[in-house]
């Protein structure tokens, strides 16, 4: 590996960490310094002054914001995400189990959707402007217009209720076998795949078409290469970076989809956890969940950038 690439990758990762730090500030500021007093928001308008003062004391609201931020951040760096207001549970412990569940769901959605999207994208690009492309584009334009929960309920109504093929609730508990677990999460996985697939496929198609318009593709055609060899030998090496970018971007998008889909199927994951505690105005849990989601999102974006850097011949082989 060349020297400049290492520096570039290191820079990109450092920048990502800096961004994550800034995000932690933003989340903290967003939850602590907004016009509504947190204690007031939690207890509602009818709260007595004493209970308000108690809660403020408990939340440490009487200390300066900067001190509170640094003690919060210091805790996070040591793996201490604080304690939930509503039930006094340790957030890190409660989150651990759920994070695993969410990852399981996202993992299978990714495993299915990524190869499928790339394959469909290739087909659409190969037959650009002809009927396979038009069918795929038409269907995906429709799915893009649907919010996750609409897809979720349509799938749930038909597959689980009408045809009774799969359970409508995705119950998972510790000690379940992998196959049992997989059976339980199949429905939300299908929904997530549908939600991510359309975006990913459209962007893959655009990325490949973009490469196919390059002059060197014409050169390859004029050399007498078969269409397959033109794509495999000349288009593909140059399409890796944009396609990987597309995939990462959509996996990041999956992070959002997961929140809603978990609520639809009552799946005990991070999304459900976050939404429940937003409704209960449990600020420490919301902060911790927000930070975890943002970290995953930023991490995937860094990964996409790093792969682009590694795939770029100009950077790999400098002058």
């Amino acid at each position, binding site marked *: 590996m060349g020297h400049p690439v290492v520096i570039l990758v290191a820079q990109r990762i450092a920048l990502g960490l800096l961004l994550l730090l800034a995000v932690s500030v933003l989340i903290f500021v967003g939850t602590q310094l907004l016009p509504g007093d947190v204690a007031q928001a939690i207890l509602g308008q009818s709260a007595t002054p004493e209970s308000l003062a108690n809660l403020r004391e408990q939340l440490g609201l009487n200390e300066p914001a900067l001190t509170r931020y640094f003690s919060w951040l210091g805790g996070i760096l040591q793996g201490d995400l604080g304690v939930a207001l509503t039930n006094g549970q340790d957030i890190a412990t409660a989150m651990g189990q759920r994070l695993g569940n969410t990852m399981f769901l996202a993992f299978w959605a990714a495993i299915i959707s990524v190869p499928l999207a790339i394959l469909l994208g290739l087909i659409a690009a190969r037959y650009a402007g002809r009927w396979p492309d038009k069918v795929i584009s038409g269907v995906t334009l429709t799915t893009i217009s649907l919010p996750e929960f609409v897809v979720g309920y349509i799938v749930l109504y038909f597959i689980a209720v009408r045809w009774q093929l799969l359970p409508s609730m995705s119950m998972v508990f510790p000690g379940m076998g992998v196959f049992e677990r997989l059976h339980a999460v199949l429905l939300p996985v299908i929904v997530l795949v549908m939600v991510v697939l359309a975006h990913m496929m459209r962007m893959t198609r655009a990325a490949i078409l973009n490469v196919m318009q390059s002059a060197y593709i014409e050169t390859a*055609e*004029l050399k*007498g290469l078969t269409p397959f060899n033109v794509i495999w030998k000349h288009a593909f090496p*140059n399409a890796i970076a944009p396609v990987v970018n597309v995939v990462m971007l959509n996996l990041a998008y999956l992070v959002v989809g997961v929140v809603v889909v978990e609520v639809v199927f009552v799946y005990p994951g991070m999304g459900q956890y976050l939404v429940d505690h937003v409704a209960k105005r449990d600020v420490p849990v919301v902060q911790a969940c927000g930070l975890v989601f943002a970290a995953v999102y930023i991490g995937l974006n860094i990964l996409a950038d790093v792969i682009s850097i590694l795939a770029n011949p100009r950077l790999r082989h400098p002058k």
Partner: protein
Amino acid sequence: MPDLLEIKNLRIEATAYPPGEPPRDVVLVDDVSVSVAQGKVLGLIGESGAGKSTIGLSAMAYGRGGVRLTGGQVMLNGRDLLKQGASSLRGLRGREVTYVAQSAAAAFNPAKRLMEQVIETTLLHGLMTRDQAETRAVGLFRTLGLPNPETFGARYPHQVSGGQLQRAMTAMALCPKPDLVIFDEPTTALDVTTQIDVLAAIKDAIRDTGVAALYITHDLAVVAQVADDILVLRGGKKVEYGTTRQIITDPQQPYTQALVSVRSIDHEEKKEAPSVLSVAQVTARYRGTTFDVLKNVTVDLPAGQTLAVVGESGSGKSTLARVITGLLPASAGRITFAGRALSPALSSRTKNDLRELQMIYQMADTAMNPRQTVGTIIGRPLEFYFGLRGDAKRRRVQDLLDQIEMGKGYLDRYPAELSGGQKQRVCIARALAAKPKLIICDEVTSALDPLVADGILKLLLNLQAQEGVAYLFITHDLATVRAIADRIAVMYRGEVVRYGTKSDVLAPPFDNYTDLLLSSVPEMRLGWLEEVLAHRKMESAGN
């Protein structure tokens, strides 16, 4: 025995998709017949849109985009290519006929090493073993004058210069020992001093390998150096077809005659006069860089005359224009304009300074707001500088349109509805509307076809005679300089290496760079290339 390539009554069509209208078929090439014998070079020449590249690619039975070969015959080695199936065409593309593109930089796959791409066809068609092919490629690199031929192939396209890439592409085309090579404007994208070396390398390679070639270009002087025969095309139709000697020395058709005599504007050098613009010891660099793009530049432009600033890309000639207009304030030096010191930065200049110093751009397309009509474009300076409105403004715009030899009907047209030459004329009218003392012309004819460019130059000279406006004329084209300059400044790497009246600058003895530059401009006569190569003092920067 039939010729290697025989094209008979070729007709080529495409489907156009004008926005908002139903698609319609257009004829790109109509009834063109031509032939190339073994080992001969045919030049295809014409303006943009003449159909020359389309005909060139038809020799591979290839149509770009939606282009279709709809009539006639393309016979290669006795077979009609238009009747071959896809796999038979693949068998002969890259083996019997190969292609060299205008922009080698785009035509090479950025992700693969050069050697891999150069020998790909040879291996694909099973013509040689890998070792043989690599040996042949190295030999071709040597013939084409590439540096370190043994290791050259290990590099990636972005690691070598444009002139070298163009030669590597020639090697790629010659490697499988084809019968015919199509050269599609192979030197057009290169600087003039690099062009000559690539041209010579291509000519040598064609001679050494005995291959036949189709050489496509818009520059008659270039093709005259390499071709045996020339086909002149216009609007997809044949204008004239003959030997190179006949076309150059005895053209029959008026269009060909115009092409041959282009660049033969006679311009008398004007007498000394007081300066309208003096640039004294100007140095400039772009913000955030540590490199001076202009070093100690001193030039003088007499009122009502033309100073041509000549140089290749990267010479700093366009930067000089930016410094004079105030877009890039000079870091040192003085500029005096119309007898007063000109403030370095645009923001602190008076409205009168701005009015008297106008600019015309290379790309008339991007120099006009596509959402404004010609009337608005020319009218705005009148309104802005002179407060003209309504009828008075409209009358003045019409006067200006008359001055640039465009009729009444153009007032309400949009730029997209004009031809390239008309667009540039409108830009000239916009500059003229301000009644300037000086107009900076930045490569104003470079993007135009030769005959159109000629018209623009004549117009500029006429306007100078009428209005007494001075031009600072930036160009890389010495023929243009000869046609219009009173004074010349030759720039090289940010410095003025030669400056004076036209007669002094263009007369020997020359410094090395001016010699290289002057000698690199193709001349419209046979045998020029050989003569030049025989007595050059300096290698071009592209090597």
